């Protein structure tokens, strides 16, 4: 069958293209150019295409498959980068990879795959697609360390039907690299990508400041009861649960302090002790990968690298709320993903609540 493979130029998606080609499918490699690499790296005269696009083309040449570069710069800047900055300015901690998957990768690439008459869209994500009685299901990868299901909760059911994730069953990364070696791919030992792709330096505040300078304006650090205990240099630098960058406010009354909320309207960072967590989490932009029940018990994951927490999910009149068994410090803007065993049932973006101690004085 005809399969479109989203090739990033890394070893994972290269192996996906190689395996599908080896299995006799007509593989069409597509690489999204998400941003001007020359501009992002700050090197004058650097080509707009980075090394990754070059690598993807070389892999396609080695395999003897078709390969195309799609210009998604404008779309990515609007849907992902600007949203990333807006989210920080609004006191949230965004997950740009989720936005990208939701808009550019699975949204636009699904359309392209269908428009080209492809039966499947394959990616190098570490998740498993399992065909159940009610259609395609999304499951955690066999390799728990590499599992990326948390990042894919927003994939729609129609998109999931189109998708293939050949790496979901892989034992570990070594196994993937071994396949790349066997197929003679030059990227076999290429290092894993790190951090956020459009922030190669790792300093995300630079980008936030460029789009939303207000996110880096100074403000106050206050306790939950509204006492001013310090100052900060921009709420865009803070995320709920963070214990760093608190200065003199790091310890209050002998107790170690953490960010428990932000108040972008008054440019305040609210701190409290670790146990000042919350149990109720309101969600927005909820996506279901099953028929949603009124309420059900499951485990949820609040961050990319967090433990699974037992919880009750309630859905009433379009509103979905999660009640954790034990309190935690969920960061607005991050995802709360529902798991039943290895299966992803759905999830949503953690919404902001009225910040404790700041809205009700």
């Amino acid at each position: 069958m005809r399969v479109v493979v989203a090739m990033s130029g890394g070893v994972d998606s290269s192996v996906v293209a190689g395996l599908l080609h080896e299995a006799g499918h007509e593989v069409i490699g597509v690489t999204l150019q998400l941003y001007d690499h020359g501009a992002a790296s700050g090197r004058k005269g650097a080509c707009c295409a980075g090394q990754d696009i070059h690598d993807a083309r070389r892999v396609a040449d080695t395999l003897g498959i078709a390969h195309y570069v799609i210009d998604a710069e404008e779309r990515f800047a609007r849907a992902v980068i600007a949203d990333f900055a807006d989210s920080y300015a609004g006191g949230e901690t965004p997950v740009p990879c989720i936005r990208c998957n939701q808009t550019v990768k699975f949204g636009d690439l699904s359309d392209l795959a269908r428009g080209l008459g492809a039966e499947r869209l394959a990616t190098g994500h570490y998740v498993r697609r399992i065909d159940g009685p009610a259609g395609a299901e999304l499951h955690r990868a066999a390799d728990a360390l590499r599992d990326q299901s948390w990042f894919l909760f927003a994939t729609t059911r129609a998109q999931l039907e189109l998708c293939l994730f050949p790496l979901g069953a892989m034992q570990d990364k070594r196994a993937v690299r071994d396949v790349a070696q066997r197929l003679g791919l030059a990227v076999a030992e290429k290092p894993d990508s790190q951090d956020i792709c459009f922030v190669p330096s790792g300093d995300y505040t630079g980008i936030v400041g460029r789009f939303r300078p207000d996110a880096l304006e100074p403000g106050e650090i206050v306790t939950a009861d509204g006492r001013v205990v310090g100052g900060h240099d921009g709420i865009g630098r803070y995320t709920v649960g963070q214990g760093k960058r608190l200065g003199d406010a790091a310890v209050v009354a002998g107790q170690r302090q953490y960010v428990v909320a932000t108040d972008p309207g008054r440019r305040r960072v609210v701190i409290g002790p670790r146990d000042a967590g919350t149990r109720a989490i309101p969600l927005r932009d909820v996506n279901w990968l099953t028929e949603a029940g009124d309420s059900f018990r499951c485990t949820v994951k609040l961050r990319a690298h967090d433990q699974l927490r037992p919880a009750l999910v309630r859905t009433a009149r379009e509103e979905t709320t999660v009640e954790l068994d034990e309190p935690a410090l969920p960061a607005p803007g991050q995802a709360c993903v529902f798991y039943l065993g290895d299966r992803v049932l759905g999830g949503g973006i953690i919404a902001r609540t009225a910040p404790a101690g700041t809205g009700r004085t």
Partner: protein
Amino acid sequence: MHYLDANATQALRPAARDAVLAALDVIGNPSSVHQAGRAARRIMEDAREAIARRFGARPADLVFTSGGTEADALAIHAMRANRRLIISAIEHDAVRSSAAGAAVLPIGADGAADSDALDTLLGDGVASLVCLMLANNETGVIQPVQQAAAICRRHGAILHVDAVQAAGRMPVDLAALGAHSLAISSHKLGGPAGAGALLLAPDAPFGAALIAGGGQERGRRGGTPPVALFAGFAAAAVGGADDDVGRIAAWRDAAERAAVAAGAVVCGDPARRLPNTTCLGLPGVRADAQVIAFDLENIAVSAGAACSSGKVATSHVLRAMGLGPLAGQAIRVSLPWNVTRANIDAFVEAYPRVAARLRSPLATRAA
């Protein structure tokens, strides 16, 4: 494969291949004193004469280059001096990237440059170098170069003409056009890539060379020349005179009709265009998706200006024509000298099918 991307490059003509292969075995350097040098020089000068004659210049006024891009860059470098630079809004990157700080000559909705606007621009009497291509690479629209040359000369301005796409596809004669210089490329004519020429009018104010080197080309372009490529260039230029342009135009029209029947818009339609080129906008469908879909049907077409990465950018040409979103939704179909009926039939058959499929996800989402 059905190759319909002649404006990118096209097949080597048999006569050009023969000329290249024969000249490759000549070992001399044309600058050398001995008989081997003379043999090489003879090939080179025969080529110079043939190309100059074909495009209306004196052999002594032809400067061989590595291609059209270098010819454009050399023209601007050598003739800009202290002149103000004015380039049309639809010039190729070969001109645009050598034209920092240039004023822009606007383009009409039909894709042709506005002669009156040029007259107005030059009316201030500032000494100027104007760049206006003879035919556009994306739309094929033929530009009013003869008029522009008359206007430039009336105002004492210099006119450089990028004739890379026009050469071989319409009559091109530097003297008749009245311009000061003309850039030509070998591979667009069906010759080997890596060769081109800048043709100068006798009164062209040529200043310093880009590459002085050993003073070759009368001090206008240094470096030991690839004699064999120039031999192939000349053979292609001469051989191209026999192309059946009428047949190519009729086939281009057939391809165009099929696309229009399936919902396409011809960009630059009412204007006079090259016989081999059509630019087909398909409203709502990204140009890169169209190019990919045709490639999967074994039909080679192109869109906009492809970056070296292969990324297709929105066309500055179509944007300058005021086409709005359609500027990112058009493909270029350009028929090569060796196009066959089967090539056209394949395109005519595929276009409605490809267009319908590319539109279906849009329709699904809108529903």
